[in-house]
């Protein structure tokens, strides 16, 4: 049965009056991985960033349409942005850890939320690091600088840090594009593991990655949603010629 977590209705986005997204309609299912694919500049990241209202940090941003999470329009005036961004976590292409210890990085959000008790924070650190499949590698060096970890470990630590805020949606913007194949495989395994508890949106340029990890795939081109469907169908027999041309590398 369909269980819609995010509903995007007629969403258009402009930056300084240049249209980046054009009347997007999309339903994102709970506890599924949805990949957004498309050529550079097609609006993938813009779409992702409408879901935690991060586009508003960019000057000249305008939008039309609605983004509903659990039926609530997140662009309503009375929406608390801090609560929204707690609900919708985000992982970026390059890890953006604070130049602090591993422990401090993870407890950053819970501390901001007012949790100060050491025992509870310790519990959170172990739980989210286990979820992010990095606990075994860092449990003996929680006080060392997070930036001393490898790129793959840093990215998984970013995921752990995001999970510590207890979101229900994870936005991932090219989370493995700067990583080697082994680290990429770990991130992909992690995505599959995490979807049991979170709704995941993944922006990727790596078509094979989209095919491997996502349940649904959306193909965007020049700000328009060209095709959206189940990933096996999209990669074996897409309906739209443009989708087929893109996934088979005929675009150019």
């Amino acid at each position: 049965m369909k269980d819609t977590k995010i509903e995007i209705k007629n969403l258009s986005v402009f930056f300084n009056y240049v249209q980046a997204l054009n009347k997007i309609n999309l339903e994102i299912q709970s506890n599924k991985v949805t990949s957004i694919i498309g050529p550079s500049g097609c609006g993938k990241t813009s779409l992702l960033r409408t879901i935690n209202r991060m586009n508003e940090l960019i000057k000249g941003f305008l939008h039309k349409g609605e983004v509903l999470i659990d039926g609530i329009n997140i662009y309503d005036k009375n929406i608390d942005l801090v609560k929204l961004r707690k609900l919708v976590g985000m992982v970026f292409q390059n890890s953006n850890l604070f130049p602090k210890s591993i422990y401090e990085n993870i407890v950053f959000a819970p501390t901001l939320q007012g949790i100060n008790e050491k025992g509870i924070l310790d519990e959170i650190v172990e739980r989210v690091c286990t979820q992010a499949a990095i606990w075994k590698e860092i449990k003996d060096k929680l006080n060392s600088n997070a930036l001393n970890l490898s790129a793959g470990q840093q990215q998984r630590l970013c995921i752990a840090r995001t999970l510590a805020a207890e979101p229900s949606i994870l936005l991932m913007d090219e989370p493995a594009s700067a990583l080697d194949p082994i680290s990429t495989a770990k991130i992909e395994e992690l995505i599959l593991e995490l979807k049991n508890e979170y709704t995941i949106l993944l922006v990727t340029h790596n078509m094979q990655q989209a095919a491997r990890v996502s349940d649904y795939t959306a193909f965007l081109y020049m700000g328009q949603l060209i095709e959206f469907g189940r990933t096996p169908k999209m990669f074996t027999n897409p309906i739209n010629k443009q989708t087929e041309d893109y996934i088979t590398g005929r675009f150019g």
Partner: protein
Amino acid sequence: MERPIDIHIEKLKTRLIKMCSLVDDQVDKAIEEIVSGKNTVVNEIEIADRRVDKFDLKIDRIIHRIIALNQPVAVDLRLLLSAMKININLERIGDLAVNISRTADELKLQDKILSNIKFEKIAGEIKHMLKLAFDSFINNDTDLAKNLFVHEENLDRLVDFSQNKLVEIMKEDPAIIDEAMKINSILEELERIGDHATNIGKEVYFIVSSKSLKHLDSDDINSLDDI
């Protein structure tokens, strides 16, 4: 703009088309041998079959390499999966042509029997079916591919008729049972060539439409929407 995979796919198609031409020639010669009684072509068909076997191996290697290096999806993937099966069907047609020519080599009284069964029609149907199968592959033509089903049913009817006729001939003249049984085995092998031609048509249909025609009969095929 040509993609890197296009060069390899083109090479694969060229090999498959050459293989089509080789097995087409093998079947033509085998049929000619049955009708004319000339047994000089057995050797030629066997030599051609060794070439077909080499093509079979080479095509397998090309497909393996394209999949490993290009991670194909959608129509590219369908083409490669179907090319593997078309390759198998072509190789089997080549083997059947060899078997037929070896059996035909042992025939002595074919004039007496062939005129009483519808052999010419069967031979004509086989040649036509191979042409349909190969043309449908070369031109990605699903209409030709669907047409094969009608011809396959026609072929089956002709073979059934001829086999019944053979039984009658054997009853009338038990002295030619041995010869008639050989012709019966040739008929069965020709019928299998027809099946392989139809299989090729099914693969062409799958490449173009992504719909499988497996386990369907000609009524089901006729009710399919045009692509």
